[in-house]
């Protein structure tokens, strides 16, 4: 980890790391006696777990002064299913579908990360065609995930219409998934060593059709929001976080990039076939909600570029590497991470040489990014908390695992 931190060079990393480390874990002091002055306005309210804008079952305890947020505390675990513990009692193959249930809006990415981690542990490499299929599906899934994020984020801020536009277009992606592997959401598309399924007839054509279909649609979303005055007022300078703070808190993904840190695992540590494609990493400057929005919009376009290249250059050949029927990786441990739509998704697997992992740990991007919530919303208003929760793009299935 240290080596990587050096890669993201930034001279004030160390200070802010200390700053975060020195902070008390709970910062609300809920039981502290009320201050004699002004306490009449302090209000502690529960946002969630049943709340229309907490994206599932996140519970945020808000300490408010009027409408100003004095502090927040996230209570998570309502969706805890013990995924990591389950892994210890399943074979490597059996565990593969479980990862789809973590970030269920980006199931393909989760599967990719897991399969690659196990492959790395076994020293197997997937064939080139399989890698290309993986890239295509993962990038499609990135678009789908961003579309879902955009719709719900806009809905949180009060714009109803984008939600339906994005869902209309996300449907096309899900149709491709369904045709490819039979499932729309929890796809289980990849296997350890490659892909289970060959592409169906007309796959390339459909993906290309989708590319030409969705590019103007992304413009359409932007038309609704990018220059909308109210949208600007609601997102600009809201939830600002600096790049150094992001790194200190371990925040990755679009949130990090919107703060001006050019860090994308697809470029920094290319996996699958990403080194073969030409694409850019969109970077923001202010680290506010609006920049995160712009970064994600740009990422969707970049994903389109990647998919286009991949579909055009997809090689022929096998889709499965030679892997034994019973997967028994050698004794050892591995950390492999990929750039999921929400940030760095890492799998740390300890193998004791049996068919089941000794320990499997997931580094979910949503969980880590959620830490930045308190930093982002202090001093803002209740309405901004909603906007910031939306902009971090969390999926509670992944946070709670």
């Amino acid at each position: 980890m240290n080596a990587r931190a050096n890669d993201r060079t930034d001279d004030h990393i160390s200070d802010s790391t200390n700053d975060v480390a020195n902070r008390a874990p709970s910062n609300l002091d809920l039981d502290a006696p009320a201050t004699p002055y002004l306490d009449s306005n302090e209000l502690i309210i529960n946002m969630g777990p049943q709340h229309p804008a907490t994206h599932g079952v996140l519970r945020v305890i808000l300490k408010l002064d009027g409408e100003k947020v004095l502090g927040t505390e996230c209570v998570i675990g309502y969706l805890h299913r013990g995924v990591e513990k389950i892994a210890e009692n399943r074979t490597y193959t059996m565990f593969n579908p479980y990862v789809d249930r973590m970030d269920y809006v980006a199931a393909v990415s989760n599967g990719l990360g897991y399969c690659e981690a196990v492959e790395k542990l076994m020293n197997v490499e997937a064939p080139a065609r399989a890698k290309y299929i993986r890239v295509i599906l993962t990038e499609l899934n990135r678009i789908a995930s961003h579309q879902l994020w955009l719709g719900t984020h806009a809905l949180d801020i009060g714009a109803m219409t984008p939600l339906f536009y994005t869902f209309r277009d996300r449907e096309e992606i899900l149709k491709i998934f369904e045709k490819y592997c039979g499932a729309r959401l929890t796809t289980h598309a990849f296997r350890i060593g490659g892909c289970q399924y060959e592409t169906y007839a007309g796959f390339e054509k459909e993906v290309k059709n989708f590319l030409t279909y969705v590019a103007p649609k992304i413009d359409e979303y932007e038309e609704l929001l990018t220059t909308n005055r109210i949208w600007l007022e609601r997102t600009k300078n809201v939830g600002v976080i600096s790049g150094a703070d992001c790194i200190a808190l371990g925040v990755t993904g679009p949130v990090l990039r919107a703060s001006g840190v050019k860090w994308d695992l697809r470029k920094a540590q290319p996996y699958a076939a990403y080194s073969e494609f030409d694409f850019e990493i969109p970077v923001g400057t202010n680290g506010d909600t609006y920049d995160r929005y712009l970064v994600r919009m740009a990422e969707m376009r970049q994903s389109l570029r990647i998919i286009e290249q991949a579909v055009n250059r997809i090689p022929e050949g096998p889709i499965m590497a030679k892997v034994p029927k019973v997967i028994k990786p050698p004794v050892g441990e591995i950390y492999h991470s990929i750039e999921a739509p929400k940030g760095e998704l890492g799998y740390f697997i300890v193998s004791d040489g049996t068919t089941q992992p000794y320990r499997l740990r997931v580094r979910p991007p949503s969980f880590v990014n959620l830490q930045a919530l308190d930093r982002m919303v202090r001093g803002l208003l209740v309405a901004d908390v909603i906007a910031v929760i939306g902009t971090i793009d969390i999926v509670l299935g992944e946070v709670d695992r």
Partner: protein
Amino acid sequence: MPNFIMSYLNSKDAITPGAAGSQFWALIYVFVIFTGVSVAVMAMNWLERKALAHFQIRLGPMRVGPHGLLQPIADAIKLMLKEDIIPAEADQFVFWVAPMIGLLAAFAVYTVIPFGPSQAVSDMNIGILFMLGVSSLGVLGIVVAGWASNSHYPLIGALRSSAQMVSYEVAMGLAVVSAILMTSMNASGTGTLSMIGFVRAQQEQGVWFIFKFFPLGLIAFVIFAIAMVAETNRAPFDMAEAESELTAGYHTEYSGLRWSLFMLAEYAAMIAVSSIAVTLWLGGWMRPFPNLLNARTWDFIFSLFPALTFFGLAAIGIVGVVRMSSHSFFRIQRIGLAVFAAVLGFIALLLLVIAVAGRSADANVAASSASRFREGIDYVYWFVLKVAVFMYLFIWYRATWPRYRFDRLMRVGWKVLLPISLGVLIVTAIVGVIVS
């Protein structure tokens, strides 16, 4: 017929029943307006869901009745049958009375709305003052509802809406004052506060106030149009019930009939403020160009509009019937829609007959009762049409814009709208002095 019924009908000049002192007809008008507004709210409910759905590439209600036409009725029945929950910790009496306050305030306004020169319950000397005052009582219902629920989100919603509505009332009132100033730009130099007086002033001056002293009237109108969205707690100013922030704001704890009363009040208030805007700036009941195209032929052509509108609606219904699947599953729906279209067509025919029968044969001949009836329909038609445009705007706003943030909203109210409306008021006064 008893005298108290006929004396009002026989009176020569067009006056409202309130002004004529006819309690009987005033009551009839109240009843008609109450029914009309309730039906309009239901229609608005359906229309909003439909229009919003089509903005959002959905179909909206389609199951209950053809194209969901019976959906509002189904909703009303559902809401009435729902369990009426009063939270244990709530203040029972206040919880009970809050929706009534909102509803009363929203409906009391209709007593002075002039649908025509005599198509109003009463013409108060202080009409606009009364309207602003009574519609500002609506905020009491919201505040009290939020407080009585004894819960955090409703309380925040109530605080937000009280601050919001009181602030926007200021800008709204100043915009209205500049319209009041415009009524005094006549020979005698006396203005009016009466709602009917507003339309008459626009008639006399030969210009809708939105175009008067261009662009002053327009600016005042725009300020009013913004403030009225805030006053009715509609998107993008729906802070008080911001769904994604405060779950449902002040009516989070309400359910069933009580909740539907809030909805009824909200929609009634929307229609009411739109009526104010129409009366003050858009010429009220007057048809377009009443002074420019004042020949009897034009009169007749414009009097055909109501019939044409209904013919258009019937045609849309017929298109719907044709396009509907011929599967037997849809037979009842097809029949229902066909009957609905036929009813619309019948109304259109009726209106056509009235328009033809009531056309003024000669300007010198005293108006027959048929032509008076025709005129009444015209007045109400044009008024309702203008209000309908505003209703559509309300839906359009909701489909297009994200929600404002509360502090920004207050800033816009106090630091943008208020100074502009003050400036417009002063400039209007100066221009008025110079012109007269």
